Each structure stands twice: as C-alpha cells, then as structure tokens.
C-alpha cells in the first residue's frame, strides 16, 4: 500500500484531533485578525442608531435554540448592550417556538449585571412566549396586549411604564429577528408585508444565503450573517464605546478562520491522495 492510499484510510480520529486543536488554540491565544464591517451589518446598526433614546422600542425576537446559540447569542448581547447603554427601549419576544423563551431569559441574565440601572418594565419588557406562530405575529399587529396580556413575569402590560404608548407595530421603531431557521420569513410575510414593520435579521452563516432575496428588495433592512456578522456588530458597538466587554464573536472568528483553513487543507490533501492512489492502482493493474 502506497503513502497516498494509507492517507486515504487515515483514522478519522486524527482529523477530529486536528479540528479540536484548530479551534482551541486561537481561543487560548487570540490572533486578532482584522474584521471589516459589511453593508448589511452596518445597515442594521444604523437603523438601531436612528431610534431616539427614550423613544419607541427596538423589538427583538429570539427565535433560536441552544444549538445555534454560539452564533446568535453574541448578536443578542451586542444589541442589548447597544440599547441599554444608550437608553433605548427594548421589547423582547421569546421567539415563536418555546426554546427561544429560555434563550431570551438566559441572555438577559447574562447582560443585565453589566447595567444595574436598567429595569424591567421601564427600560425593557420581556414578553415571553405564546403558542400560535403566525397567529402571534398577526395578533401583535392589532394589539400586543391581546396576545401578551402580561409580561413573562406575570406583570400586566398596562401597569408597565414602558408599555403605556406601545400597542402594535405602529409603536415599534424597528424589529430584529434572531433565528437559525426560516422563521424570519414569517415576520417578513406577516409583520412586514401586512403591517409595514421594518425588519432586520440575525441568522446563522448557513441560513444567511436564503435571505439575500429579501435583503435586495428591502424587506430586510439589514442582516447579521453568522459569527462574522456578530463580530462585525461587536466591532461597531466597541468603536462607539458602548461596551468594554470581551468580544466573544471576534475571538470566535479567529478559531473559525483556522478551522476553515484546516478543512480546506484537508480537502486538498484528500483530493491529492484520491488521484494519486487512483494512478497507483492503474499502474499496478498494468503491471
């Protein structure tokens, strides 16, 4: 058996080990690779910046589960930091499927200790989860209280100072859906098309490709695509001085860079081994 044939039969645990090292080492020693901000990310940032402090809220829907949290959590954190440090109000929906409700609460638990002055009901309202998917989105277009009579903690919305002037999408400045699935399309179809809500999306790198048609038509104002999108947003809020917290997505991008390089290297080696062993077999047959 030739060298290339041996390589073709390489135990996959060696590949696993290489990937583990490629991911771990940049986490231990960040490379600080440059991040360039792309237009879809800048558009989301600018749209949030246009919301006047103490004005109508930014609505965030956490339509994601723990599986996609490494990509979407940094976006949620960055958006909360941007709003809380600039006195912008935030209306949070725990997603259209139950998993997102836990993600929203976990995100709040993570960020709130950085902002001791931020209060539930005054600076942000967390609505929790209601079943119904599209019916929830449509109902909110008529009256938020009808579908969410209380916030996630059981406090009636009418008693919350922030909710006094918020009734439906007309009172929401901008909405961002964080999702690793096709749920953002539901927001576009029902909240965007029917009620004219301005919408942005934060999604996983895998899902980003499917939203380009909506981006080009303006149905999505902007998009944060994958960990890269989150890292770009972190860079923007850092530049504005909104936070000094550890940039988790930016550090993650170093690991992702090395992992991508390694996968490309493995594909090249795999192809060379494939064609070399094919030639070796042909030659052997001739002999």
């Amino acid at each position, binding site marked *: 058996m030739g060298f290339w044939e041996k390589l073709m039969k390489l135990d996959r645990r060696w590949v*696993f080990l290489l*990937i583990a090292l490629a991911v771990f080492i940049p986490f231990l020693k960040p490379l600080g690779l440059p991040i360039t901000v792309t237009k879809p990310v800048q558009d989301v940032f600018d749209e949030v910046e246009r919301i006047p402090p103490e004005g109508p809220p930014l609505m965030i829907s956490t339509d994601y589960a*723990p599986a996609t949290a490494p990509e979407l959590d940094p976006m949620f954190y960055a958006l909360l930091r941007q709003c809380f440090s600039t006195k912008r109000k935030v209306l949070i929906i725990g997603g259209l499927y139950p998993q997102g409700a836990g993600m929203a609460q976990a995100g709040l*638990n993570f960020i709130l200790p950085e902002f001791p002055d931020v209060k539930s009901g005054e600076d942000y309202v967390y609505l929790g989860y*209601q079943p119904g998917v599209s019916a929830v989105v449509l109902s909110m277009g008529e009256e938020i209280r009808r579908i969410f009579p209380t916030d996630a903690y059981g406090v009636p919305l009418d008693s919350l100072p922030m909710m006094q002037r918020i009734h439906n999408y007309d009172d929401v400045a901008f909405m961002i859906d964080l999702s690793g699935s096709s749920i953002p399309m539901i927001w576009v179809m029902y909240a965007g098309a029917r009620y004219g809500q301005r919408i942005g999306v934060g999604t996983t790198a895998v899902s980003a490709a499917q939203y380009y048609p909506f981006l080009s038509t303006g149905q999505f104002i902007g998009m944060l695509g994958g960990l890269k999108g989150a890292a770009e947003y972190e860079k923007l809020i850092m530049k504005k001085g909104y936070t000094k917290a550890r940039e988790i997505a930016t550090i993650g991008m170093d690991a992702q*860079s090395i992992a*991508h390089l390694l996968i490309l290297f493995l*594909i090249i080696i*795999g*192809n060379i081994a494939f064609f070399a062993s094919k030639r070796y077999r042909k030659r052997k047959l001739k002999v």
Partner: protein
Amino acid sequence: MRRKIPLTIAFIFGIVMIIQFFIPHPVSRDFYQTILDWIVIVFAFTYILAVTSLIRMHKGKIKHKKQGWGFSYITIISLAVTAVIGVVGGAFQPTQITTWLFGRFNLQIEQSTILMLIYTYVQIPMGATMFSLLAFFIASAAFRAFKARNLTAILLLLTAFIVMLGRVPIGMLITRRLPEIFQLSNIVEWILKYPNMAAQRGILIGVGLGMIATALKIILGVERGYLGGGD
C-alpha cells in the same frame, strides 16, 4: 358525514378569511381577531398531542425492548421532572412555593428559577455540544468525500473554497493587497448576491405558487390529506 363537516368548515373559513382580508370594516376586524385567538388556543392544544405522542412512542419502545429502550426511561422521566418543576416552580419568575422553599432552606440561585437553572446548565450545553460535533464530522466528511470527480464537483469545490475563505478574516488578510474586485470578501458577496440569489428566488417563487395551489385545493376540498385516512 364525518368527512363532509370538516370539508364544509374548511371551505367556509377559507373563503371568509380571503374576503375578510379585503374589507377593513370593524366587524371584519373583530372577526379576524377572534379567529386569531382561536388559532392560538388550538395551537396550545397541539402540545398535549405532541406530549401524548412522545410518551406513547417511548412506552412502545420500552414494552417491546427495542434497541436503546433504556434511554426512553430517561426521556419520560426528564419530561415529567422538567414539566413539574416548570409548573410548580415557575418558568421565569419563582412561584410562592419556590420562594417559600428557598426562604426556608436559605437558598439563592442566580437564574431566579429552577427551570432556568436546568435550561442554562443542562439544555444549553447539551444543545451546543450536539451542534458543535458537526464541525468534526464536516471536516472528516470533507476529507473523505469532497472530491473533484467531474466538472460539477470542481465548480462546487471552487465555490466552497472561495466562500469558506471569504467569510473569515484570514481570507481578507490573504487578498488585502489585490485590487478590490479580486478580494475574496467581494467575490463572496458577488456569489451570494447574484448566482445564489437567482437560485433562491426561483425556489421562493416555486414555493409560493405551491402554497397558493395547496391552499386552494384544501379550500375547494380537492386536497383531503389533512383529514387522515389516506385518501
């Protein structure tokens, strides 16, 4: 009769909801809002159906000692324990029982409820672990199966190379001295904005037309699959 009633209901509501959409009268809006309330209520009941189905499936696995039946016990017990903790202890805000218990034993938890504690320290790490395993399998599969066997595979390989490198900062770093048009991030943007978008639009238009056709078939009683029974 058992089929006629649901078919009639589907026809009447389908037609009425289409008409309602074009009439912005208060009566029409009230009707619309009531229907939305009904949808939410019906949707909530589907969870009962889902839990019943899950329990029935795992009960069957345990009964017939199918492969991995021991895990079915873990699923059912986890489901029961989490549900009880959620209902008795509260989801995001501790209930009176939790507050009393915590007070009695002088306990304090950072996540405010036990359910959130379970979610944060059990479900989130488990979900993230399952998904992160994908990186290892993708790398192994790419090494073994991603071969330039023909023209289509070569095109796919080239695109994958450009997108994988262009979506990470190292790709930017490699091509930063080249003219803007040849920089990887710009090539990736072009791929996503044109060839990708053309394909996505085609798919979306196809899906949209399919949805309209299916909805019409259901309203008119041509498509009856949702009634069950196999016809």
